[in-house]
């Protein structure tokens, strides 16, 4: 098991390394470079000044050299300086990373709380009215544009009913925990509703598959209760593919968080990456993307370990 963890960890690091180079190269293809921005700010810069500045910042070096310099600095904890925030990139990203983890974590818990019961109920009564309703809702969930859903939630709960804030974080003021939690409700709801449909459909299919197996009939035949068969025999096996799908879905969840955070003004990684790219803040965008990729890879790794824990038949060596 330990060697499996180490091997998966090394694999993830390799992917992260490849991605870091790709992302770095892509950043170089974004419109303008730091010197262009300086020229905009100060039109009096002569071509000689520009060349001198380029050399000073190392922008005249080939891509691989620049990448290597950035990588060695980043590994030592020096992520550079953000242009938009005039702060070191690390200081901006760390708190925002936790804001995103909070959003993603709550959303993941909520969607499992919805998807597991809904999927199990649907699978145990296929083609019933309840199954049809759940299935239709799941279809609606995967078909709705996530940003539009967020806007509809704001129109309903903030503009019309006035119950919840339309966006922001509720930080800074001397507010209680509940006041701050109110700012979380709509973003978590929007993110969850836009992702839960796929999970419900997957739990349903996986549960149906499990219920078809011979061991279910055996368990029933030896006199176990319905509930025990459902939970201990069917669900335990049905969960294995579900965990895999949830892991693969982490990338989508991070993508969804970008939309949700941008619309609700939630200061997380997604909004930061978006703002950084729109504002030509290369250092911030670069590290933001790296953090988001690392977060996704980490979630994948955790899911693999959960998978091993759920399915003792899997041997790792």
């Amino acid at each position: 098991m330990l060697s499996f963890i180490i091997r998966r960890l090394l694999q993830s690091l390799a992917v992260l390394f490849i991605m870091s180079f790709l992302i770095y190269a892509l950043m170089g293809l974004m419109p303008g470079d730091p010197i262009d921005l300086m020229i905009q700010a100060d039109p009096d810069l002569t071509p000689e000044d520009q060349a001198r500045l380029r050399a000073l910042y190392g922008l005249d070096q080939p891509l691989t050299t620049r990448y290597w310099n950035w990588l060695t600095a980043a590994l030592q904890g020096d992520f550079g300086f953000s242009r938009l925030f005039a702060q070191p990139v690390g200081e901006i990203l760390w708190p925002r990373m936790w804001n995103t983890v909070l959003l993603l974590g709550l959303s993941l818990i909520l969607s499992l709380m919805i998807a597991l019961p809904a999927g199990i109920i649907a699978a145990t009564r296929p083609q019933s009215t309840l199954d049809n309703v759940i299935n239709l809702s799941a279809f609606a969930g995967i078909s709705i544009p996530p940003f539009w859903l967020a806007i509809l939630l704001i129109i309903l709960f903030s503009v019309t009913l006035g119950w919840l804030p339309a966006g922001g974080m509720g930080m800074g003021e001397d507010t209680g925990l509940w006041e701050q939690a109110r700012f979380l409700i709509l973003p978590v709801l929007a993110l969850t509703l836009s992702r839960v449909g796929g999970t419900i459909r997957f739990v349903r299919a996986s549960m149906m598959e499990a219920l078809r197996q011979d061991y279910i009939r055996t368990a029933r035949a030896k006199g176990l209760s319905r509930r025990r068969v459902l939970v201990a025999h069917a669900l335990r096996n049905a969960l294995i593919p579900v965990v895999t799908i949830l892991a693969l879905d982490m990338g989508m969840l991070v993508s969804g968080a970008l939309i949700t955070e941008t619309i609700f003004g939630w200061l997380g990684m997604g909004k930061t990456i978006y703002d950084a790219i729109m504002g030509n803040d290369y250092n911030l965008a670069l590290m933001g993307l790296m953090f988001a990729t690392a977060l996704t890879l980490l979630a994948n790794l955790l899911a693999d370990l959960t998978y091993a824990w759920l399915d003792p038949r899997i041997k790792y060596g």
Partner: protein
Amino acid sequence: MTEVRSYDLAAGATFATEESGSPARLLWRRFRKHRLAMGSLILLIVMALAVFAAPLVEAWSGLDANRVDLMARFAAPSLEHPLGADELGRDLLLRLLYGGRVSLTVGLAAALIAAVIGTIIGLAAGYFGGTLDALLMRLTDGVIALPLLPLLIVLAAIDLTQLGIPAEIAQSQEASLYRIVVLVALVGWTPVARLVRGATLSMKEREFIRAAQALGASNLRIMAVHILPNVASPIIVATTLAVGNIILLESVLSFLGLGIQPPVPSWGNMLTNAQELMYSAPMLAVWPGLLIFVTVMAFNFLGDGLQDALDPRAGQGQGY
């Protein structure tokens, strides 16, 4: 036990009565029973006709989808503007029709390209196996697991002239359309690749493939002539579902200001200002989203119905 048996017998029985007519007719007969999928197909045909008739509607109504008329800002629905006018006084219905052209075209074009990429990768991985398979599947898993939207935003923001594409092409109005089709296709091929690989794996051990190999057919010929037609079902289903997903992705990118660039309307970029508008004119934020929602849902139902029709035994539960 008896329950399972009776189900199997029942399925076999219906299968037997259906066993008349060509495969296409059989397929159509099974598909027709899926009411939601049938309804979706009709809806999509009507919608396609409507959006591609947009220039006719424009000519007939005497309005111009891009003409700014500040006197008509936020005009309420009337005979002249059946759904009202937007923040620049442009007719909403016309813009929705033109936006639909863009959204549907992007969805179909990108899904087709994605299907071609996915099919080639899936066929190669499944047929050749070994290291190539491992490599291609690692790549597929990698693409699926990445946070795609942040990466797509970077890709949508990069400067095409730095890739050696002439400025007049890179900055033309069509460029944003082509760019989005290419980008979305580049990340959308993974489901097709996995399904095609799986189907190819089970197909390549069949006798007729062995026979073709023994007769000296080239690998390319075997893949194109013998395997491809037999793995068509998963390709068709996955591509149909991909159209819906791609329309969603296009709308997200356009909404964020990185997809289709105004004044060319798309359902996504019509919602860019929705967050400011929802206080003053909420219906402007409702219509484009509703159309995306309905269209994507129709493609998903269509894919589901096709799946059931092509593979009637799968996805059936016996209950508990």
